[in-house]
C-alpha cells in the first residue's frame, strides 16, 4: 500500500526530531536524576539506624572540695554518700544476695547480715528480691533507725552476662527502690 507523501514527510520529520541530539541529552539528564534519586534513597535506607537508648550509671567520686576564699564561699556538697549501711546486692549464677556494705565486709562471719533469694530454674527472681529488700529496709528503719539512702551497689559475679546485669541495673531504678545503682567488683 502506498503511503501518502504527507504521511511519509511526517514520519521522516519525526525520525529526524527523535534522532536529534537535543532530546537525547535531555532524556539522559532526566534518567540520571531519577537514578541518583533511587540510589540516594537506597543508601540512606541502609545507613539509617534503629532508635537507641541508654542505661545510665556512674562511678562514685572521692570528694575533695577546694576551699573558696572569695566572697561567696562556694562549696560543693556530695549528693549522696556511700556508708557502711548502703545496700549491697550480689548477683551470682545461683542466687541474689543482699545486705549492707558492713554485712559483706566487716560482719562477713555474721550470717544474719545477709539474705539469699535463689534463682528458680536458672531465672533470677528480681521481683521477689526487690520486695524483700523493701521489707528489710523498712524493718531496719523501724527497729534500728537506719534510713534507706536510695543508693545500691550491685556486684555481679564474672560469669553473669552483661545483658542480665544491665536489665537488673535498670529494673532496680525503675521500681523506684534506688535512685542510683553503682556497679562493683572484687568481692567474689
Amino acid at each position: 500500500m502506498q503511503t501518502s507523501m504527507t504521511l511519509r514527510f511526517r514520519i521522516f520529520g519525526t525520525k529526524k526530531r527523535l534522532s536529534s541530539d537535543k532530546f537525547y541529552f535531555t532524556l539522559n539528564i532526566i534518567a540520571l536524576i531519577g537514578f541518583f534519586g533511587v540510589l540516594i534513597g537506597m543508601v540512606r535506607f541502609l545507613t539509617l539506624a534503629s532508635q537507641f537508648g541508654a542505661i545510665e550509671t556512674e562511678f562514685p567520686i572521692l570528694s575533695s572540695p577546694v576551699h573558696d576564699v572569695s566572697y561567696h564561699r562556694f562549696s560543693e556538697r556530695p549528693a549522696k554518700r556511700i556508708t557502711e549501711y548502703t545496700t549491697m546486692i550480689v548477683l551470682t549464677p545461683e542466687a541474689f544476695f543482699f545486705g549492707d556494705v558492713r554485712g559483706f565486709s566487716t560482719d562477713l562471719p555474721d550470717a544474719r547480715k545477709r539474705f539469699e533469694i535463689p534463682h528458680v530454674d536458672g531465672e533470677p527472681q528480681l521481683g521477689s528480691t526487690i520486695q524483700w529488700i523493701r521489707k528489710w529496709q523498712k524493718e531496719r528503719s523501724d527497729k534500728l533507725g537506719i534510713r534507706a539512702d536510695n543508693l545500691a551497689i550491685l556486684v555481679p559475679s564474672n560469669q553473669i552476662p552483661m545483658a542480665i546485669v544491665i536489665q537488673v541495673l535498670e529494673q532496680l531504678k525503675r521500681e523506684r527502690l534506688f535512685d542510683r545503682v553503682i556497679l562493683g567488683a572484687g568481692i567474689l
Partner: protein
Amino acid sequence: MRRRHEKVYTAYRRLKGRLLEKSHIFPTLFLIGVGLVLMLLCLTNFNLDPRLGHPTEPLVFEGKIKERTGIWFAVYLREQNVVVSTAGRDVFSWPAHEARGKGYEDFQKFLKDKAKTILHYEVTAENLADRNSEAVLSLDQNLTYFHVKPILLALADAKISRYSFETKLVKLSSQTAPDRSRKKEAPAQHE
C-alpha cells in the same frame, strides 16, 4: 590592523566549527561516577551514625533516649579477643581471658587523651555539658561481666565518672519477665 582582524576572525570561525561538531564522547558514565562520589561524600560527612559497621548486637531493652555523647565505643568478642572499636574507627583488642598487652594499654591511653581533649574543649569553648564527658558503651550480648570489668577500670582510670550502656529500643513497651517463684518464702539467711 586588517591582518590582526583576520586572525581573530579565523580563530573565531575555527572555534565555532569545533563547538558545532558532533561530539563522540558519551559523558553519561562519567556523570554517574561523579554523582555517586558526591552522594557518598554528602552522606558520610553529615551526621553519619557511629554504629554503622560495628558488629555489635546491643540488648533490646527500654532505655533513656540521649543526645550524642562525647565518647562512644562498641565492644564485642572475636576469636577469643575482646575488641573495642570507637566512633572514630580506632580498634583495640586484647585477649578475653586477661586484659593485658599493647591493645589494652593503647585503649587506656586513648581514653585518657580523649578525656583531656574534651576537658580542653569545654574550658576553651566555655561549654560545660555533662554529656561531653559521658561514655556510652555499646556491648554485644555475648559479653559477660568479666569482659567488661577492665573497660570500666580503664574508664575510672581516665577519670570518666559517668557512663551508660546502650540498648536498642523497641516500639512496643517492654514487659518485665513474670516472677515464677512458687511461694513468697522468707529469704534464706546466708551461712
